[in-house]
């Protein structure tokens, strides 16, 4: 259970982080993600066959994924805006990316035992799911009632706005 609870926390953390700084609860995104990763990678008890298989594959892939993520981050960090580059960081990033590819081809590429057709079928299912979700979002959006047009300004509102504009922008006093 701890293993799947870790995944639940990881996905919750990702969603919370994704909603952005406009919502205060987005601050909890990263800590929840970290807690989820800890729960996933430090299993308390004996895992069953399904979880053990997944856990082993994740552990195998973890080194090259970490290397690649750090590499990409460093290259992006080194490529500053306004054309001011931090070349040593970029070079380090590229080296990490190269190392991740070397690691992948040396240790992972030949050891993968999954049936490629089943993997493709699974990805096809994910695409079907995504298409259904896009369709349902579009359907809901199209049935959302439009907001009614606001009424024109009343005489008192017009006077009030005119006074604000005159106070701030000046204007021709002769016209008053």
């Amino acid at each position: 259970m701890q293993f799947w609870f870790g995944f639940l926390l990881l996905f919750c953390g990702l969603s919370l982080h994704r909603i952005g700084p406009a919502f205060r609860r987005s601050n909890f995104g990263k800590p929840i993600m970290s807690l989820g990763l800890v729960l996933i990678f430090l299993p308390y008890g004996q895992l069953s066959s399904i979880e053990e298989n997944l856990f082993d594959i994740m552990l195998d892939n973890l080194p090259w994924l970490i290397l690649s993520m750090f590499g990409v981050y460093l290259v992006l960090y080194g490529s500053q805006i306004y054309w001011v580059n931090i070349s040593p960081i970029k070079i380090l990033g590229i080296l990490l990316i190269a190392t991740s590819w070397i690691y992948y081809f040396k240790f992972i590429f030949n050891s993968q035992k999954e049936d490629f057709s089943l993997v493709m079928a699974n990805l096809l299912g994910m695409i079907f799911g995504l298409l259904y979700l896009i369709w349902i979002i579009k359907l809901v959006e199209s049935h959302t009632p439009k907001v009614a047009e606001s009424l024109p300004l009343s005489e008192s509102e017009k006077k009030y706005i005119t006074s604000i504009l005159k106070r701030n922008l000046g204007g021709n006093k002769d016209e008053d």
Partner: protein
Amino acid sequence: MKIEINDALSSVLDGCIFISLLFLIHLICSYHPYHRILPLLMGNVLFLLLVVSINYFTLNPESSLFYLLRESMSNSIISILYFSPFFYIFITFIIIKLFFRKRPEDPLLKLLD
């Protein structure tokens, strides 16, 4: 042959279940007052129930519901891990392009010389 088709169908449904569960978590976590969550939630839950029932009653009647959900999640995460190097090829290509990018010549700056 029958087993293979069943396995492939089961894999397709596993992918649907995974995406549906992820979207369900995302909808709940990213709720805000200006969000019309109910129709999306209902549509997603109906889809999830449909996919789970097809998988449970038709393709895997001997396994338990909890086992089925765990298996779906596990298979989908493995598929993503298996397929991730293909995405990573594109990311590497973009990163290499970024690495060798040079500042384009600016005609306005040239006028200053």
